[in-house]
């Protein structure tokens, strides 16, 4: 006989939802640059999927974002991001809407490094989810050599240092610090190989967010082709 005791099942459901709300912030997997392109209209799509042992709960964890942006001033680029995700074995969910801002603080090439600032606010699509702030400096350096080593081409190095903070009733009070780094060899506009690193500290406030501090490093390939 199929009957559901709603009173007994409701606490299980609320605990599962609260656990979902208190998950550590999603690690940053996209690099941001401090140089913006005045009057640029941007449509961007990013996808991420994990590969791990079947049944581990870590395989086929997918997330995708679509971003729309326009640069109205030479120093400010706002973007609107729409986040979707699917945990292993689960259906797709619309996760959050995020308002991103990139500020270019210095003229490109004027100082030893180019400096920018990034700030975003992510609003959860779930009633029990948490909203989140991410912010921090963007630093970029173009160099003719790499620590004195002449590689025959210019190199470009970019660093993001972001602090995250959840807000709302179901928030996690940890303050993670995430690091994103990219170095690449500027061979030509179509082919710029390099590597990227993503990692960080689970909390700089001394309160753990329960994550095990992921660190990821791998090859990167950047290129540009002008279609118009």
């Amino acid at each position, binding site marked *: 006989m199929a009957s559901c005791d709603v009173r007994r099942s409701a606490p299980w459901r609320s605990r599962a939802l609260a656990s979902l709300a208190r998950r550590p912030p999603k690690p940053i997997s996209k690099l941001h640059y401090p140089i913006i392109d005045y009057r640029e209209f941007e449509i961007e799509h990013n996808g991420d999927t994990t590969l791990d042992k079947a049944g581990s709960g870590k395989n086929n964890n997918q997330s995708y974002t679509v971003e729309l942006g326009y640069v109205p001033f030479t120093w400010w680029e706002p973007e609107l991001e729409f986040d979707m995700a699917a945990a292993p074995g689960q259906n797709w969910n619309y996760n959050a809407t995020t308002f991103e801002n990139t500020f270019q603080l210095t003229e490109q090439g004027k100082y030893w490094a180019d400096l920018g600032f990034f700030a975003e606010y992510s609003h959860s699509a779930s009633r029990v989810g948490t909203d989140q702030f991410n912010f921090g400096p963007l630093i970029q350096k173009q160099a003719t050599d790499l620590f004195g080593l002449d590689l025959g081409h210019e190199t470009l190095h970019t660093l993001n240092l972001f602090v995250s903070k959840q807000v709302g009733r179901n928030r996690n009070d940890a303050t993670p610090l995430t690091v994103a780094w990219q170095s690449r060899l500027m061979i*030509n506009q179509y082919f710029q190989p390099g590597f990227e690193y993503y990692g960080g500290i689970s909390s700089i406030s001394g309160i753990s967010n329960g994550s095990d501090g992921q660190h990821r490093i791998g090859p990167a390939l950047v290129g540009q082709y002008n279609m118009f």
Partner: protein
Amino acid sequence: MPAGQKITLTVKNLNSTPSEFESADLNREKVVTGGSDITVIIGPLRPGSYEFFDDFSADTPHGHIIAK
């Protein structure tokens, strides 16, 4: 321009419509509104030829900055 030195380039748009100074070789991309000028800081460069163009006018001839 001399190689190994940083220089400031002044780009003047003598047209009434916007242009974009772009150079993949120099890693620079900057809009110049009509009738105005901008500065672009480049270098230090290795000796060589660096191509630039107006991204808003594909049929405009490309230019080169020679560093030596």
